[in-house]
């Protein structure tokens, strides 16, 4: 089965979109599910949320953070990946909630797209709040424009939309309108603060946990998180949980478990391939 990179596009510095060949994933993938890729035979297993599918191919959007994601961004179209496994994890709980506010932060905007689309198609009124450091990281705006009843943009530097955080926009929205369901995907810190607002206002709030994973099939527990006081595995029990029940402080610290080794690997890669600032 081919796992070729069919198309690659640079969306902004260190942010890339890929279409990968896959025979089976497009047939079965539902919003909220993820896949795992391995670049080559020495590669690690990288979990990525599915953004979109079309016959024979699947789209992912990748932010370059460590050695493997930089390496991926530097591959040419036509490159055959060692492995693409998916769809994995549970799909989003799509139904007609009424008024749903979906919140995407940074590269988290990408995995939010299929869920937001499905929510809109299910009859919900969808308010989208998208936030990023600056305008060039605000991705998929056309797609969100199309599906949203209301689209609010936020940037840290004010280069697009309003200057401020997605949580600022959420607070103002909640002053004006009743929201029946929240959905937040982005950096853990963002999801933590959205979940805190949700808890305050008693609004259910789905979040997608991007914990460290190995096999992605429930076999190892690397991705575990404390939810409602219990150990849950993001790969098979999630990846979506009600953020109000997640132990965020613990989860955020767990994300740094391999930080030293990750930066050593990136440094070694940079010594091998040269400056990465152009990526």
């Amino acid at each position, binding site marked *: *089965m081919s796992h070729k990179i069919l198309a690659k596009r640079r969306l902004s510095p260190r942010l890339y979109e890929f279409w990968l060949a896959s025979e*089976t*994933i497009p047939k*079965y993938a539902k919003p909220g599910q993820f896949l795992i890729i*391995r*670049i080559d035979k*020495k*590669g*690690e*297993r990288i979990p990525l949320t599915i953004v979109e599918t079309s016959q024979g191919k699947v789209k992912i959007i990748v932010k370059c953070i460590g*050695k*493997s994601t930089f390496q991926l961004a530097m591959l040419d179209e036509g490159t055959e990946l*060692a*492995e*693409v*496994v*998916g*769809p*994995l994890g*549970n799909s989003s709980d799509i139904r007609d909630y009424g008024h749903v506010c979906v919140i995407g932060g940074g590269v988290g905007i990408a995995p939010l797209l299929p869920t937001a689309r499905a929510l809109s198609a299910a009859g919900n009124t969808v308010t989208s709040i998208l936030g990023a450091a600056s305008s060039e990281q605000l991705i998929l705006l056309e797609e969100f424009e199309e599906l949203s009843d209301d689209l609010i943009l936020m940037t840290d530097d004010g280069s697009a939309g309003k200057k401020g955080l997605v949580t600022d926009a959420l607070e103002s929205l909640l002053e004006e309108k009743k929201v029946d369901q929240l959905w937040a995907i982005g950096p853990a810190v963002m999801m933590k603060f959205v979940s805190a607002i949700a808890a305050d206002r008693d609004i259910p709030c789905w979040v997608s946990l991007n914990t460290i994973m*190995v*096999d992605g*099939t*429930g*076999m*190892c*527990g*690397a991705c*575990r*998180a*404390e939810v409602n006081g219990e*150990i849950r*595995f993001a790969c*098979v*029990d999630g990846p979506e949980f009600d953020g109000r029940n997640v*132990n965020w402080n*613990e989860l955020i*610290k*767990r994300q*740094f*478990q*391999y930080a030293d*080794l*990750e930066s*050593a*690997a990136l440094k*070694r890669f940079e010594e091998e391939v040269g400056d990465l600032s152009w990526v």
Partner: protein
Amino acid sequence: MGVRIADRVGMPELDVNRRLKSFEEVATGYTEEMAIAEASRCLQCPTKPCVSGCPVGIDIPTFIKDVKNRNYESASRTIFASNNLPRICGRVCPQEKQCEAVCVLSKMKDKEPVAIGRLERFVGDLQIEREMPGSLQTSKRRVAVVGGGPAGITVAADLATKGYRVTIYEAFHTMGGVLVYGIPAFRLPKDTVVDEAEGIASMGVEFVRSQVIGRTLPFQEIRDDYDAVFIGIGAGAPRLSGVPGSNLNNVFSASEFLTRVNLLNAWQFPEYDTPVVVKRNVAVIGAGNVTMDAARTAKRLGAENVTVVYRRSEQEMPARREEYLHAIEEGIDFKWLTLPTEYIGDINNNVSAMRCARMELGPPDESGRRRPEKVDGSEFDMEIEMVIEAIGQKANTVLRYGFPGLELNPWGFIKTVEETGLTNLEGVYAGGDIVTGAATVIEAMGAGKKAAESISKYLDSL
């Protein structure tokens, strides 16, 4: 009086200092001379208790006689007639609890049983090309095998030799299951597994890799596409103690630690991309074979002090004696009658100590072993920077959502008819750890053999 029986021929082993710097195989294998000497110890008793001690019923005395007579091709044929994976079984079967336990020699005063496993390995390692049945795929019937571990490989090979068309669906990129991701290379070299497991391709078995049935491909689709299905997906989920502090950083399941190292070559990081954490003081919880594997792996990766912590005593330890002795040689410490009650973290949520209670053994529990009980007020702290929990396996959660209609037992494992491996669904069979809970490689293979026999009968009845 009568025959004088020589002492059992010892297994040559790699020097300890070299072991600790590498993942090279520890037991280096018999030479031809050693094999013949060991084979000559066999009494060739007509009752053959060893054969009934073998879960797959290898004709042990016959192959041993062939070794003694240097008739290796015949020995290989005899083994392959019952076992498709002699190189693997010769290494990891607990022979001391099976064939060797019932060897007549072991009943004699001061005598050790014939080293059946080592002889099996010797024959397997000669890699004599096996004869294949004249024509493969003589039947039109197609069988899907879910899971490329010991049970699945056995089912596939047995059915292929009977002429059926078999496809194995494996979740990872390589065949072997627990033989690849679980058992470390110093006990079972990865080339051996891959050669032996993928060798069944020559019997016409097809492999589909990186597909998780019940997740990436619906179970129903497989059922519709094939005449019969065998599910051998392994236990599949780590049992975690759940004591306070379980989610601290550097607290790992043995499954995670070993999968990183074994399946994804983390011991060769950063040459390979998957990292693995190793700290100075490591505690490994449990006392099974996986515990020994994790402890010895941590030591090889550079941990200074590795302590196995077990709530019962040495007598109740489930690990193979051989692995335990290897662990001791390699400098692993053992703390018996000790139960971790809490992991304590530092400001960064990294585990920095482990609170433990001392235990004493009370009356026997349902497993027949004396139940460990906490000694009041015996708590003490151990300074450690890493914990690996190796306390067993639970049922794979994929069964709960990915296999609709399949009947499970209260623990989440698949319910089957013991003699046949048949589940509650027509044409669907299961075997191995996903039926029994974590057991041995050879037991999974035994279940695979039985299932292959029943599947064959079922297919012929269609």
